[in-house]
Each structure stands twice: as structure tokens, then as C-alpha cells.
């Protein structure tokens, strides 16, 4: 009996240790005609992976690859939209045009998703507008069990390197918007709410969101 238990425990450990990880698959919209390449000046900008090259995939165990956002996911925002509707960011339409865009006013703004219940979150992918070549500023993504983000907050991405947003200094890099969005590794953080901040872009003061997807279990 004892020997059987030990064998089972070893087998379980092996299964956990050697479980094959898979890449979270994001369905990508077609590339956008973004016009004349721009020189974007920033000390904190990551190198562009180059045309056609996708950003590094997020590898997780298969059980964490479920898409948690649906078209019924409740979406709230820091301020009323200038154009578009809140549910545009979860409607599955990643068409990089203005008809699927939620636009929030200038300055630091956020979009918040309510996943309905507590989840283990593996990844969040954010598609901002890519109407022209641009970089969104102070991109911060947080997960929490508290609707108001007053406690139990996990920051999974923060490229606000000079703490403009007063959410803490971030160490992530700024990045150019592309059709593959920005997959962010949530490292299996637990929470019900996902909040995505931004503070305008290098092209305009307003904050344009096309889609946000959350994956996990």
C-alpha cells in the first residue's frame, strides 16, 4: 500500500514537472496599412521584432489556455467613451479600423473587464489602435479580486518607467502597436477583474482600444 502511494506521488510529480506546455493562441487580425514609418523617440522602446515576426509566445500548461473573455464580459471605463461602445473591446472584432474602436478621452484612462468570478489568469492580450505607427504611453495592466483595485492587486505589465501614472515605476518596455497586439504574461495570477491603463499615444492624446482578451482557467 505504502509502495503504491509512493509510486503514485512520484508519477504525479513527474506529470506536473514534465507536463508539456503549449503556446496560448491569439487569433490575429490582418496587418494594417499604417502609412509612413515614423521615428518614435523613446529611451524605453523595445526593438521592433520586424515585419511579419510575431512577439514571443506565452507558454502555459494546456489547462490555462481557455479564453475567459466573451462578448458578454462586463466592461467599465474610467470615463465615458468619446466614440464607440464599451463592449467593442470584447466583441471578438479585432478589425483594425475605427468601427471597432472604443475611444476614451485624453490623459490617464482605464478599461476594466469583469470576468464574472475568480480565475487563474495566464495571459492578457491588448490591442490598442494601430491607425498609424504609434506607441501608447504608460501602459499598465493589473489583476485584482477587488472591483476598485484597492487591495490584492497584481501588476502583470507596467511600462510607465517614470511613474507618470502614479501606479509605481514599471520595468517593461514601450512597444509599437501591431496586429499581434501585446500578449502579457500574467504568470497565473488570481483575480476576477482586469484593468488596462494607458495615457494617450505618440500620435494623439486620446486612448483607443480595439480588443482585450484574457486567457486562463
Amino acid at each position, binding site marked *: 500500500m505504502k509502495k503504491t502511494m509512493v509510486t503514485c506521488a512520484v508519477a504525479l510529480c513527474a506529470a506536473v514537472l514534465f507536463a508539456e506546455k503549449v503556446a496560448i493562441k491569439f487569433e490575429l487580425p490582418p496587418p*494594417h*496599412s499604417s502609412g509612413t514609418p515614423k521615428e518614435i523617440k523613446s529611451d524605453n522602446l523595445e526593438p521592433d521584432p520586424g515585419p511579419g515576426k510575431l512577439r514571443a509566445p506565452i507558454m502555459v500548461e494546456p489547462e490555462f489556455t481557455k479564453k475567459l473573455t466573451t462578448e458578454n464580459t462586463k466592461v467599465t471605463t474610467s470615463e465615458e467613451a468619446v466614440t464607440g461602445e464599451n463592449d467593442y473591446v470584447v466583441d471578438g472584432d479585432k478589425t483594425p479600423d*475605427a468601427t471597432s474602436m472604443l475611444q476614451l478621452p*485624453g490623459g490617464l484612462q482605464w478599461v476594466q473587464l469583469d470576468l464574472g468570478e475568480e480565475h487563474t489568469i495566464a495571459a492578457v492580450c491588448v490591442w490598442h489602435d494601430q491607425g498609424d505607427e504609434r506607441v501608447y504611453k504608460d501602459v499598465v495592466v493589473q489583476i485584482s479580486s477587488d472591483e476598485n483595485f484597492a487591495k490584492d492587486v497584481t501588476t502583470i505589465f507596467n511600462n510607465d518607467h517614470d511613474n507618470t501614472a502614479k501606479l509605481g515605476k514599471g520595468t517593461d518596455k514601450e512597444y509599437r502597436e501591431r496586429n499581434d497586439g501585446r500578449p502579457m504574461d500574467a504568470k497565473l495570477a488570481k483575480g476576477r477583474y482586469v484593468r488596462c491603463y494607458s495615457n494617450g499615444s505618440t500620435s494623439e492624446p486620446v486612448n483607443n482600444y480595439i480588443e482585450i482578451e484574457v486567457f486562463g482557467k
Partner: protein
Amino acid sequence: MSIRDIAIEFCGRGGKKLRPRLCRAVFARCGGAGDIEGVCEALECFHKASLIHDDIQDGDEERYGRPTVWKEHGVPVAIAAGDWLVAHGYRLISESGFQAMPQMIHAAVLSHVRLCEGQGDDLLASASPVRPSGYVSICERKTGEAFALAAQLGALAAGADDAPFRRYGLAYGILFQINDDLADGANPAMLAALKKEYEDKTALYRDECAIGMW
């Protein structure tokens, strides 16, 4: 605060930037070389100027969730801010450096004239019953023209034949106005028929242009 500051601040308040998007997409489709961004900015200046003046004409007090320019600064200042944007737009095109710049300026002037006439006819006709032909003519000039110009400038800047792109932009703009009026609940039966007609035209012309996402 100067007129320039007021005008530029208004441009940053929001909007979908559809016309610059269309211009960029056409420029890219035609394999354009050079910097198209100044032309895109000019198109947005023309559009924002028309909004400032439109808000005065309609007496609208709010846009993009904020007081309109005339409501915030008064009618005379708002007129001046709109005028500045028009002038600035022409300046940007004239300084864009494209070989086709004279044709681009000419296209913008013609488009501007038609837009003013369309807006004028719309204001004059507002108390009269609207028939489909008259309605389309107004849409064509007051909204379609701006999209036609956006597509046309992208093609001209790239040194391409502008006719198919202009045709697509015009149909798209008319459809855009029909959808806008449908959302406002005006003439639903007439607009539903026109919507179908212009959806078909837009799809056909778009295929002819083989234009990508914008």
C-alpha cells in the same frame, strides 16, 4: 491662448480619424514613397474645421463629451479657429513635397467647394421634404467628398491613377452619412433602400481598388 492653440486642442479631443486612415491605406496600396503624414493631418484639419462650423450652424453644445468650441470660446472665436484649420490644412499639403502637389491642392480646392455647396444645400433644404436623389446629392457633397478627397490624395501622392480610389471614397462617404442618418432615425424606409445600394457599391469599388484594412 491663441486661435492655433484652440484649434489644435480641439483636434486632440477625439474622433476616429477615418479620413487620414483612408489616405494612408490608399498611399500604401499604391506603393507610395515619402511622408504622407502631413497630408493625413491636413485631411483631419479640414474635417475638424467642418465640425467646428457645423456645430455653430446646428447650435450643438457638446461634442466628444465636452462643450463645443463655440460654446466654450464664443462664435467669433470658433469661426476663426475653423478658418485657421482650413488654412493650416492647405499649408500642410503645399509643404508635403510630393511631385503631384499642385494636383493635390487643386483636388482639395474642388472638394472644399463641393463640400461647402453640399452643406449649404443641406441647411437650405432642412425645412423641405427630402427625395432620394436630392438626399444622395447632399450626402455626396457634404460627406462623400471628404472621403473621396482622402482616397484621392493618397493615390495622387503615390503617383497613381486617383479615379478608382476617389470613386470608392465617395461611395464609402455616402454610406457613412446614410448610416449616420439611420442612427438618428430619419426617413428609415428610404434610407434602408439607399443603404443596401451603397453597401453594394462600396464593396464593388473596394474590390476594384484592392485596398487593405484601414
